[in-house]
């Protein structure tokens, strides 16, 4: 009995425990400080709403991180999707709105198409030409934004058809439909990363791409799949942004990239590749959402709110560092003791 629990405990990731503790502590702190407002259904609902977009972007970056890459272009892919769809809706929507259903289906098709294309472009430069992902996606970030800007002349697209808005604001019981779909997608991606052959290969490639090459694993294909998945997830985020904000703009949400980068690091997914558990991502998304909403309720300016990511991150890394050094110190002390004992024994002999 004892061994099974021990085994189970060993299987739980240290980071999961840390993040869970952090989230709970923050939750409790918020209840103490602003319990009345924080626990109100309206607030919880808006928190659930808000975590969808950053959550999707964090999922993209998390995938890229695992492959020892990075994808800075995700937000611009989302905006590109929104802009293209916006223009399509503006020009094609019949005055009486009769073709709404078809057009909304077309929106999804366009999103998939744009996400796929953008992902392929990223993967091509990274894998076929061999440029560092950070440079490639820095370039494509500007490229995609440039295309969106050219299409809109810098204006915002908006006034989307009502059914899209209804979809964006729909509720399933107490939970927003979008959040529910996000959670489903997240669960699916967790399975993909942790339990499919592709996911395993992705992590292996991130931890040592030379070894996977010598093992006959097709690194190029893995890179393509990764950046295409990232592009598709970003495209979905684009649809979510449309439905939630009723607008699309070429330079919307530029802080999302940094937020997503930090969310992943907070979840223990290292940009150095291969390490970290994808399933921890949701905990760090929630943690950040709690702090961000909390700061809002405490009437702290949104600009300072952004700095909380940095502080949270340094804090979590500090905890990691301390626990790590404590462990090595303990091990070393044990070793020295052993050495001394051995020396004494030899002396006796």
């Amino acid at each position, binding site marked *: 009995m004892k061994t099974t629990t021990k085994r189970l405990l060993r299987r739980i990731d240290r980071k999961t425990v840390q993040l869970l503790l952090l989230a709970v502590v923050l939750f409790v702190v918020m209840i103490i400080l602003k319990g009345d407002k924080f626990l109100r259904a309206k607030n919880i609902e808006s928190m659930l709403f808000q975590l969808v977009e950053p959550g999707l972007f964090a999922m993209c970056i998390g995938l890229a991180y695992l492959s020892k890459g990075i994808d800075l272009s995700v937000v611009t892919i989302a905006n590109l999707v929104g802009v293209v769809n916006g223009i399509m809706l503006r020009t094609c929507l019949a005055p009486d709105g009769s073709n709404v259903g078809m057009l909304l289906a077309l929106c999804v098709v366009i999103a998939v198409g744009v996400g796929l294309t953008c992902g392929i472009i990223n993967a091509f430069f990274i894998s076929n030409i061999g*440029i560092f992902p950070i*440079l490639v996606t820095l370039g494509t970030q500007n490229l995609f934004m440039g295309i969106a800007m050219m299409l809109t*002349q*810098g204006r915002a697209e908006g006034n989307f058809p009502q059914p899209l808005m209804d979809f964006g604001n729909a509720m399933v019981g107490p939970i927003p439909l979008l959040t529910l779909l996000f959670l489903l997608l997240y669960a699916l991606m967790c399975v993909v990363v942790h339990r499919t052959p592709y996911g395993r290969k992705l992590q292996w490639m991130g931890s040592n791409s030379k070894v996977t090459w010598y093992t006959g694993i097709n690194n190029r294909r893995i890179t393509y799949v990764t950046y295409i998945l990232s592009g598709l997830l970003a495209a979905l985020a684009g649809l979510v942004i449309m439905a939630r904000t009723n607008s699309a703009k070429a330079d919307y949400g530029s802080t999302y990239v940094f937020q997503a980068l930090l969310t992943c*690091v907070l979840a223990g997914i290292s940009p150095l590749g291969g390490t970290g558990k994808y399933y921890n991502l949701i905990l760090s998304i929630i943690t950040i959402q709690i702090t961000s909403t909390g700061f809002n309720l405490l009437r702290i300016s949104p600009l*300072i709110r952004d700095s909380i990511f*940095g502080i949270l991150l340094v804090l979590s890394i500090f905890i990691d*560092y301390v626990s790590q050094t404590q462990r090595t110190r303990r091990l070393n002390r044990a070793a020295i003791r052993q050495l001394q004992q051995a020396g004494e024994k030899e002396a006796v002999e």
Partner: protein
Amino acid sequence: MKTNVRRIALKSEVLSLLLIVLLCIAFSIANPAFFHIINILDLLKVCSYPTIFACGVMIVLISGGLDMSFMWIGMFSAYSTSKMLSLLQVGQGIVMPLPVIFAISTCIGALLGSFNALLVSKFRLPVFIATLSSANIFMGVMFQFIGSEYIFPAQMPVRMIEFSKTLLFTTQSADGTPVGLHASVLVAAGVCLVVHFIMRYTLVGRSVYCIGGDEAAAERVGFSRTRTRLFIFMLAGAIAGLAGIVGVSNIQVANPYDFQNRELTVTAAVVIGGTRITGGSGSVIGVVLGVILTNIISQNLVLIGVQPEYSKFVFGILVLFAATVQGLQTKLRNRK
């Protein structure tokens, strides 16, 4: 002879130089006013403080890390300096001389840089993550404890405003307005010279290349990792602090949101200028060329009638192109 050509072609700075020449030709055909002295002087002015920033970015990049915090270090230093001095000026009537102003901002920058060094060498964080989070922290601290409101020219330290209006070697242009080299260009040139000297001719500068090339080997030779990192980040921070105050003076308004989200643009210029993103290689000359190149594009597209919206697109293409050429150069070099 052939090997010489090849060696030159493989030099990383050549690409940006070539592109600059090509662009100059293209722009001067499209717009005869391109080579006009006003246009050139204006370009130099616009390039001045990004070049200073870029020098700092280059130092960190050579050591093998991507700095994401320099813009906020620059803004933090410049804004807090401006605010402090404007309070002194308005309240006590004390007018600080310009060198003191610059020195204060530079010192604040160095101090913030040492925080980066702490994160990187003590907690062993990758530079990218460390500076990303420190950038956030600097931003938060600034907005919380120093302020977030604009400081308008009326309240700005007088010397800074004077500095922004200083032109050197002035002549009269056709319509009678004075034309000259902006003083900030001189500061930028000075920084470039100093950084070039440090990186090229001092041991500590070379140690940055060593750490970027092979950290373990650098330690074996006898460089201290902690001390070198401290040097790298303090110098980069100081440079960012100086760049910030020069930038704020140029604009004449201390707007805390001004440098937001421009990290990657400057970084791209540094990389286009031939600094290897994996570290260990890069030069000030290349960086200057990179900054000039990116600014020629963003400045002149509008002049020849291209919508400003297109500049992002062109910039993206440029980054991809430069990176592709660099990738091919590396491949060639390895093939030998």
